[in-house]
């Protein structure tokens, strides 16, 4: 949802590299400022784009995963970074009623906490997560209470 007016007219070389490999992303990669790129690949192509960015474009660090509630869908924004300071925000959209997401811990073992947070706070169903305790909510927090969903309002416990 980057503001279109601030997108530079000259395409970013990394955006071109993404578009060359995944034609569906042509013109879809936005760069709201220097060293920032955002893209939303189709759900079925997400992991392929993610792996390509990591292995071929040098985005070798997963900085964080940000979960968001966009009413009809939930969105996970994966922020990947390169040694030169460029950050790529890859958006993965899942339907709100079936918010299944495959773990990326096979590539980034440090992602486990970020993915547990997606589950705890927004209700993503992350598959293939290594065994471990929930994060960050307490052990006795009800499983169906997802506080970062927009329709969840803080209040006194029943």
């Amino acid at each position, binding site marked *: *949802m*980057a*503001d279109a007016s*601030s997108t530079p007219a000259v395409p970013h070389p990394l955006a071109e590299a993404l578009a060359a490999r995944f034609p569906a992303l042509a013109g879809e990669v936005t760069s*709201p*400022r220097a*060293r*920032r790129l*955002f893209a939303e690949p189709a759900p079925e192509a997400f992991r392929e784009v993610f792996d390509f960015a990591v292995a071929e474009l040098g985005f*070798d*660090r*997963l*900085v*964080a995963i*940000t979960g*968001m509630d966009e009413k009809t869908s939930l969105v996970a*924004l994966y*922020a990947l*970074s390169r*040694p*030169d*300071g460029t*950050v790529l*925000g890859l958006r993965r959209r899942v339907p709100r009623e079936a918010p299944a997401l495959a773990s990326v811990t096979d590539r*980034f*073992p*440090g*992602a*486990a*906490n*970020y993915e547990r947070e997606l589950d705890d*706070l927004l209700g993503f169903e992350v598959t293939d997560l290594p065994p*471990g*305790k*929930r*994060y*960050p*909510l*307490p052990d006795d927090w009800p499983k169906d209470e997802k*506080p*970062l969903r927009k329709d969840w309002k*803080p209040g006194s416990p029943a």
Partner: protein
Amino acid sequence: MSRVTIPIGPAHPSLKEPESFNITLEGERIFSAEVKLGYNHRGIEKAAEDRTYIQDIHLIERVCGICSHAHSTAFCMAVEEVAGVTVPPRAQHVRTLVAELERIHSHLLWLGVAGHEIGFDTLLMYTWRDREPVMDLLAMLTGNRVNYGINTLGGVRRDVTPEHLAQVAQVVDVLEQRTLYYAELAETDVTLRQRLSGVGHLSHDDAVRFGAVGPTGRASRIDRDTRRDDPYLAYGQVQFDVITDDHEDVLGRTRVRVKELLQAYRIIRQVIATMPDGPLTVKVPRKIRAGEAIVRYEAPRGENLHYVRANGTDRPERVKVRAPTLANTAAVAKMMEENYLADVPIIVAAIDPCFSCTDRALRVNADGASEVLSWRELRARGIERYRREGVDFGDLNARLSRQLSARKG
């Protein structure tokens, strides 16, 4: 050998911060470790969605008591980026000055904690003595020792005077001399070397795999520093070295932090020398246009990420904070493997995990009126309180000095 699993925490073995570990031992050696976090979750991200951007600055500043400026600055930078405003150069310099002073007090605090964890309390006394003048400088510049409240959207809330800058320069000169001594200790002291060398080993490959950040990553040869790689504030205009170390252990993490102190003094001198004139703020609309921004900030403990998404109103749609400790926690379990159980406190402390603290007293008078104590008054009250309980350091010091002079005589 049979294995035993013991729980440690959530009352922490080293710092006053809750997290828990399930540590599986083979004899005295750690076979594996499992980390559980979340005891300090306060729902700040949810609360931020319900408050205005201005209110959120103060909320976000309280994510951390030590690196509060790191959080409020990153949040302001994200909102300013979405709003499309450019912060005036003088404000950028003031933010940078406070940021580096914050790094100095954080690193000195860490060095003291590390000394304490290995039974080297003299180092704790020395470095915490040296940290005090930095806290005093921050109080002078911002009005607060922690949670400075210097940031606002579009700039900073207070100006610095030439006298302020002269005082900062004076303290930095003294601290540099002392830090050079600590740097020498880190290179040559037998206690530090024998106690820290090889402890909490994290290979370069594991550091990359687990996504270690900041001094923890740099001590495993990860040559990354957001200040250089993705410059913000005034960092693009100053010269400094990114410190890395090839020890890949707690000794390496110590060396990196001590050398980073010297770089912080170098940055502060340049910031003072090039402090531009001009306004402190630029006007930012109350309602922020729709958009999003990812900001990274090199906090004392490592890379800090803030994500802000605006929806055109005066409240954010989403605020996300990923503090450096969360990125480093994944590596902690790896660092513990093959180490002795007794090394758990220093290994945990060596990533410099973050805890909240504050330091300001409010005296409520009998008539209900309140009065803020100055730091000098707060110290005097502390001395007076101990005196009432029969502990008088004044007498003790006088007696010690009499004994010493008698011995000399």
